[in-house]
């Protein structure tokens, strides 16, 4: 591991750059670049494709907030003879030296298929790969996180706890952290707002509040 709360003096083997004069002899590190010929030669001698799991739990999709959650581990087949890495079930093969960029490449692939599927232009040949990808990602949470806010109207019944009666007569208690959005609305007043809904149709954010009374 890199550094953990329990002491492991192999920590000195997880160091990265070495002082130049001892580079050749203090080479006990697990951290290696795939461009390091020592690693490549070692694996070539075994003549196998190595299977690794990529330690990534989310793929970055948009800006500084939207991510695509992964359900499980991403499996990589690293072929040191050809110098290429394949992401199993994703239809992605990259030069092994570019493994660091896989989260972005995988995110692009997903967004490409997701966009095509939304536009109903996904090619038949790609549908199988897309289905396999969907098996490995939490696309439902992604869809909710990505959804645009909905225009909503309601009445502010009480500020604490934050109780709203929506225009369809459904009364809902919202998380108190959303109360700041209603700072200028008095209890009993009607309002309109753009609300974003999460799992179980719960409001996760609310903005653009306007008075209707």
């Amino acid at each position, binding site marked *: 591991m890199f550094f953990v709360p329990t002491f492991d003096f192999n920590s000195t083997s997880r160091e*990265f750059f070495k*002082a130049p*004069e001892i580079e050749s002899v203090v080479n006990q590190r697990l*951290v290696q670049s795939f461009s390091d010929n020592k690693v490549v030669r070692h694996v070539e001698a075994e003549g196998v494709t190595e299977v690794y799991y990529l330690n*990534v*739990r*989310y*793929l970055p999709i948009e800006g500084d907030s*939207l991510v695509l959650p992964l359900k499980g581990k991403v499996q990589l087949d690293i072929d040191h003879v050809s110098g290429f890495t394949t992401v199993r079930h994703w239809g992605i093969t990259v030069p092994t030296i570019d493994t660091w960029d896989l*989260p972005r490449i995988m995110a692009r692939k997903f967004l490409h298929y997701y966009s095509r599927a939304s536009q109903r232009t996904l090619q038949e040949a790609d549908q199988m790969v897309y289905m396999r990808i969907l098996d490995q990602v939490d696309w439902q949470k992604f869809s909710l996180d990505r959804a645009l806010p909905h225009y909503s109207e309601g009445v502010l019944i009480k500020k604490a706890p934050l109780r709203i009666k929506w225009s369809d007569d459904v009364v809902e208690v919202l998380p108190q952290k959303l109360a700041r959005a209603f700072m200028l609305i008095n209890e009993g007043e009607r309002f309109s707002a753009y609300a974003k809904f999460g799992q179980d149709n719960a409001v996760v954010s609310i903005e653009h509040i306007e008075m209707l009374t």
Partner: protein
Amino acid sequence: MATDTPVQTKLRFKRAPVIKRQINVLCKGKDGIFAARQQSYWEKISTSKWPTESRHEYELTCNLQQVPGELSVQLEKSISIIHCFRKIIGENGSDSLEFRFRENQFSLTLNSGPGSEVGFERLHQEFNFFVNDWTQHFDIESLLCVELEYVNLISKKTTPALISEDGSVNLGDALNIFTAREIGGAGVIPPYNCQMGILIDAETGRSFHMRVKGLEQLLDGASAVRVDFKASRQKTNIELTAIEVAEECAKLHLVVWNKFNAIFSDKAKASFDPIPID
């Protein structure tokens, strides 16, 4: 002037055999925030004046488990991506600083050698910037653990006075805990591979660990030994702010300094060019 100079000490060493100093920080971030913001942080540091070069590295981890009820093991290998930046410092360009980050962890390393003009003060100064910048960017409220690591190298190049003419290391002369007169016998001989830990303060979880390990290959035609120190504060129920972590580093440095003085022998320290300080 080289090396480290807490106010409490009376000596500093111009040619202490420290070749690496590293501060590690561990935190618990919010789910998904790192994945969402790592690219922007990478771009921010890459385009700043800080790094001389940037690259990515991988940590390969092997998890070996016995298959229940069978005489076989299951090997699971995983890859973690580490974002790295390097900055050459010092007049002759032989010293460098390295900043690495990954999810919930970052480290700052100073590579230098005996006679170098830079020491812990420079590392600490740079660390103060990164600990604030990093925690703000990734919206981290508290930090769980901080470690300060020192790598000392006893070799023909770094400590010639401690190497015999035949190329062997006089470890008993270098380290107090290996003096032959206390252990018995004519002298300490390889292999050297020894670890120990000291609890400095149970309340804060501050501790010190050391490892003495002989290198498997010769350096400059002679044997060489690594003497690694690590002072850490790691207790998961005490979370620290960025400011507290920066302050804690100075305290950990004092721990390392005191142990350095206690562990290295007077003969060794005399060979490190001690300079009295005011």
